[in-house]
């Protein structure tokens, strides 16, 4: 199908973008790899698309002492190929190749993926695992939210109308592993796992296992793999999808946990 009619504006400054977002029916267009399909299928009908691709300074990858700060317009392909990300935020570098296909990774952005908060998306789980800080720009200035508080539910975040997710900062981990299971390469994951270790503390966060990223609290505290696998039953109650029951997903979650455990 064809997208419904809408107006389009491409602001060249953040101030201008925030101004435009106050108009009724205004929606942010970043990489467009989720928004444009939904327009083509007429699942959404904005009155105005505010294309933020012209905003200066939103496409940077910076290595800071507190972690790697990645601008919202950095694409999946840039994350996949970045030597800095690979060295300082290897969890993201491992996750990026799982996102769709090369042609989509060339356009899709970090900010778009985090702001959309698809329960099967890779970056939200990575952000929660690394305890990332999200920088949100609004008319009243910038505010910061921890990833754990940002993701509120199915496609639901802490972003308020008129705000733009400007960047995310990912603290370092001693070790990181990203694994997921999909029916075919590039498909949405049946279930996935972002795992990290900082000193002796492990953190396991699952995607595709609930409405938002699920932090496996009990499995993360476990001292042995057997204990962690048993504890996962208390952490996860994954909703079934068209092909996989909740029990299957939990089983596959344990498979991923074992793979991750042996790597961390």
């Amino acid at each position, binding site marked *: *199908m*064809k*997208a*419904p*009619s*809408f*107006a*389009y*504006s*491409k602001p060249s400054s953040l101030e201008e973008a925030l101004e435009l977002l106050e*108009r009724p029916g205004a929606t942010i*267009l970043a990489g*467009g*790899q989720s928004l*444009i*399909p939904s*327009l*083509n*299928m007429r699942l959404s009908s904005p009155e*105005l*698309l505010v*294309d933020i*691709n012209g905003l200066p300074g939103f496409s940077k990858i910076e290595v800071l002492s507190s972690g790697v700060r990645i601008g919202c317009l950095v694409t999946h*392909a840039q994350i996949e190929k970045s030597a800095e990300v690979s060295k300082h935020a290897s969890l993201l570098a491992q996750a990026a190749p799982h996102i*769709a*296909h*090369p*042609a*989509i990774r*060339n*356009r899709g952005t970090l900010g778009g993926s985090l702001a959309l908060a698809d329960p099967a998306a890779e970056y939200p789980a990575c952000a929660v695992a690394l305890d990332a800080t999200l920088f949100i720009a609004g008319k009243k200035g910038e505010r910061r939210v921890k990833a754990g508080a940002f993701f509120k539910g199915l496609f639901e975040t802490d972003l308020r109308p008129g705000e733009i997710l400007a960047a995310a900062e990912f603290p370092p981990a001693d070790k990181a592993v990203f694994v997921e299971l999909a029916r*075919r*390469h*590039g498909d949405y994951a049946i279930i996935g796992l972002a795992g990290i270790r900082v000193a002796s503390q492990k953190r396991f966060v699952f995607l595709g296992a609930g409405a938002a990223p699920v932090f496996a609290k009990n499995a993360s505290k476990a001292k042995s793999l057997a204990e962690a696998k048993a504890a996962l039953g208390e952490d996860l109650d994954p909703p079934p999808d068209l092909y996989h029951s909740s029990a299957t997903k939990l089983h596959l979650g344990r498979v991923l946990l074992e793979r991750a455990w042996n790597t961390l």
Partner: protein
Amino acid sequence: MEHAVDTTLTVNGSPVRRSIPARQHLVDFLREELGLTGSHIGCEHGVCGACTVRVNGDIVRGCLMLAVQANGCKVDTIEGLSDSGELKALQKAFHEKNALQCGFCTPGMLMAAQDLVLQNRRCSREEIRKHISGNYCRCTGYQAIVDAIEQVLNGQS
């Protein structure tokens, strides 16, 4: 607010200037406005890859980018790459290996394959399959397509 936007872009090396409706995606613009019907429209929601084109050197889904977003960009389509001879080796290999039947997916498949060829490295069949995983072919079962790409990448016949 404008529903049609003055847009200037370069398509297959030629400058193009048009007032484009904001809602029109890039591949519709190429096909309907410029008559470049080599880029096909399959699913129109980013799944099939038949509309794959190159924007500023990177392959993208032509249906997942608004034509107005190509303002200032260099767009290359199957017609441009075919005319310039860039795809010669892949076209020959696709022919020799019978890597197409109906041909609907072929332009997108060639664009995606050429993206891998430009990386100038040897690839396993698994890597080739990963790279074209976003391009659907409903005829061939992919075997012959992978054969053809492998021949060009690794010089195997």
